[in-house]
């Protein structure tokens, strides 16, 4: 058993083992775990309508994802995402293919790249939100971040279009870009070499960072370096099979010959498949997470106002920043609450004042009316009093007359009629005194009755006047 080894560069001693311990199975344990979880891979395919995106994906994954051809008349660029699950031996791959719809079709292409950038940012944002949650389930999280962007360049044979330049410039810091030349069977071999060189020089001079296959691992560095020199790959896609010799191969049949998809001399399809899937899938995923996502996260957190070090260059923990922000926020809320409450109180006061004024005015009106009514009432009362007095005098007079009449009835009947009738009938009957004796009583009675009814009327009136007075 060897003792302490030599100290390593980071101060750790390395020990030598005297027997087989068994942790060389660690990578296998890790792999088994990943197999159970499954893999997630998200591809973004950008290219103009009709540049061969869907066919390429179908050829790459050796399966037919049902897709209909899209028209050229979309008003703006959209993204279409489709999820598939592929099984190969014991590996489960959850594949998401996002393609642009209507890219490069519009007359005014200014906003073409914006939906793409927004989509990529939205995926990062979703992941960031999940990561910042308090109760999070990040190991269960279905990763939707775009791992690779296949950018299909039209095979004009000349150079990059401005739209391509602009879009790639915007995307190169957010996603791994692999440029491809689509429908490459329309370019001849010599033209292709020239085209590729032109493209690469344009990309370099515009400062666009396309994805370079990693060359630091000895196992794959050699092949990766070679492949790096073949970028951009000129690809041909096909889902139709043609019989060549005695094999069925994927190919495109022309009157002048057959373009075989998987023939290295015909196009770079095999290289693309190898690089994308067999050799570097894991690296693409890792780059997305460690480089692009971290950059996004950093920018976003700084946007939100967090800092790692404050102005005195002392490290500030994110948590303290959170707390400070929260406190500020609460203070702000409180202030706003106060403000709103003040405003509310103010408004209430105003309303009250207005209402009070109205109330006053109305009460004044009512008061005036009331006084008017009172006056009228008084006048009425006076009038009625006068009337009553008058009537009472009449009653007294009539009573006097009645008493007199009764008195005269007991006396001889000669003299009374004269006196009784003096007021009423004197003008009429001067000569017939005897006759008048007989008629006097009846007339008197009717006159009495008349006076009786009049007296009753007076009584009634007096009573009602009294009632009114009350």
């Amino acid at each position, binding site marked *: 058993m060897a003792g302490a080894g030599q100290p390593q560069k980071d101060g750790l001693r390395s020990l030598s083992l005297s027997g087989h311990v068994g*942790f060389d199975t660690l990578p296998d344990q890790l792999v088994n775990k990943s197999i159970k979880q499954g893999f997630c891979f998200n591809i973004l395919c950008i290219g103009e309508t009709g540049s061969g995106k869907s066919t390429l994906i179908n050829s790459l994954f050796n399966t037919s994802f049902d897709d209909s051809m899209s028209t050229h008349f979309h008003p703006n660029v959209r*993204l*279409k995402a489709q999820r598939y699950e592929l099984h190969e031996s014991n590996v489960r791959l959850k594949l998401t293919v996002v393609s642009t719809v209507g890219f490069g079709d519009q007359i005014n292409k200014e906003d073409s790249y914006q939906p793409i950038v927004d989509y990529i940012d939205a995926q990062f944002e979703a992941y960031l939100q999940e990561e910042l949650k308090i109760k999070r389930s990040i190991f269960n*999280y*279905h990763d939707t971040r775009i791992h690779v962007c296949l950018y299909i360049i039209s095979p004009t044979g000349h150079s990059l279009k401005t739209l391509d330049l602009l879009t790639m410039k915007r995307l190169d810091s957010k996603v791994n870009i692999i440029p491809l030349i689509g429908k490459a069977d329309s370019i001849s071999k010599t033209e292709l070499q020239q085209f590729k060189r032109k493209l690469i020089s344009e990309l370099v001079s515009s400062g666009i960072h396309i994805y370079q296959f990693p060359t630091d691992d000895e196992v794959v560095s050699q092949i990766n370096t070679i492949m790096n020199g073949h970028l951009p790959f000129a690809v041909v896609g096909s889902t139709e099979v043609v019989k060549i010799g005695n094999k069925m191969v994927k190919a495109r049949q022309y009157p002048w010959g057959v373009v075989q998809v998987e023939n290295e001399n015909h196009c770079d399809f095999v290289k693309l498949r190898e690089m994308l899937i067999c050799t570097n899938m894991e690296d693409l995923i890792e780059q997305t997470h460690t480089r692009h996502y971290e950059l996004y996260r950093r920018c976003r957190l*700084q946007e939100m106002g967090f800092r790692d070090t404050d102005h005195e260059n002392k490290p500030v923990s994110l948590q303290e920043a959170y707390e400070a922000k929260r406190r500020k926020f609460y203070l702000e809320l409180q202030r706003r609450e106060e403000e709103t409450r003040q405003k509310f109180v103010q408004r209430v006061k105003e309303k009250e004042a207005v209402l009070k004024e109205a109330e006053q005015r109305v009460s004044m009106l009512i008061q005036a009316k009331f006084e008017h009514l009172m006056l009228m009432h008084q006048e009425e009362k006076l009038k009625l009093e006068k009337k009553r007095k008058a009537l009472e005098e009449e009653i007294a007079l009539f009573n006097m007359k009645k008493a007199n009449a009764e008195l005269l009835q007991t006396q001889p009947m000669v003299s009374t009629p004269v006196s009784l009738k003096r007021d009423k009938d004197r003008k009429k009957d001067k000569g017939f005194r005897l006759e008048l004796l007989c008629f006097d009583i009846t007339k008197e009675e009717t006159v009495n009755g008349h006076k009786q009814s009049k007296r009753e009327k007076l009584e009634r009136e007096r009573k009602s006047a009294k009632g009114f007075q009350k």
Partner: protein
Amino acid sequence: MEPQERSMEAAAVPQELPPDHGVHELFGYVGIEAVLEQMKVKTMKMGFEFNIMVVGQSGLGKSTMVNTLFKSKVSRKASQPGQEERIPKTVQLQSVTHVIEEKGVKMKLTVTDTPGFGDQINNENCWDPIIKYINEQYERYLREEILITRKRKIPDSRVHGCVYFIPPTGHWLRPLDLEFMRRLSKIVNVVPVIAKADTLTLEEREEFKQRIQRDLKAHAISVYPQEDFDEDPDDRLLNDRIREKIPFAVVGADQEHQVNGKRVLGRKTKWGIIEVENPAHCEFPMLRDLLIRSHLQDLKDITHNVHYESYRVRRLNESNRPALSSNNGLPGRDEDGDESNL
């Protein structure tokens, strides 16, 4: 508004949705399974980290056990009394880090020892320094994780497994053992082992194990492998078999002897040689298989996904509470009661 709508709708997919078109059959070989190879290569290049803690009274053979596990002199033993390492007055934690390599796989192994645990007359709260240490490691990781510019690979010093040594009394678990395991199984993976098992005969060993298992169940202590984290029936089957044997009765040895012409690790006594790697003699191979060969990644995963996450939840909720209560007097949102003052 359309492109925004469309992209947002496609973006709101944090949970797993079923695939649009079902499972596809591949017409030919694509090469997806090469991703496994890529993963292996990458992890071998990166190397692994493993942090293990051994807890138990002094003299139970912790250091020997660790040395036997990793077949090298990982921890120095307090071999003779009178050396400068007397029993310390309080529990002190000592971490030793080594880098070991086997067949191209590099591992950075950290062993944390706890001398002084359970050695005093009054052992109240002797688990506090240990719990503090474990939480400190979580805190360190959390701080690294919430930085704005984070490192590419956050250095992981969290304790992935805690091996607890039970003295071979043959009776029941002692109150100290129960208390310690109860508190610690909530924050870290605890693997209990019966130390110095060569003092028990096979029948005594069986009975002792049964009693311990009953005790653990009665006190609702969930040791590794925990039942709640079995993911699928295969796992459950495998882990059930392991759970039947918990705690493992182990014997540690670092000297080799000649048995039947072979050199084996073992303890030589007057009445025979106890072979450490012989499954008939002791259960050391099972422990080693569990810890290293089959469940090492699982230990790390459970630490990261379960224990670390629950620490993080507690920690972030804690920082909420002061802000809330000072402003409107509402009680805090922390649901898990007094876990924070374990």
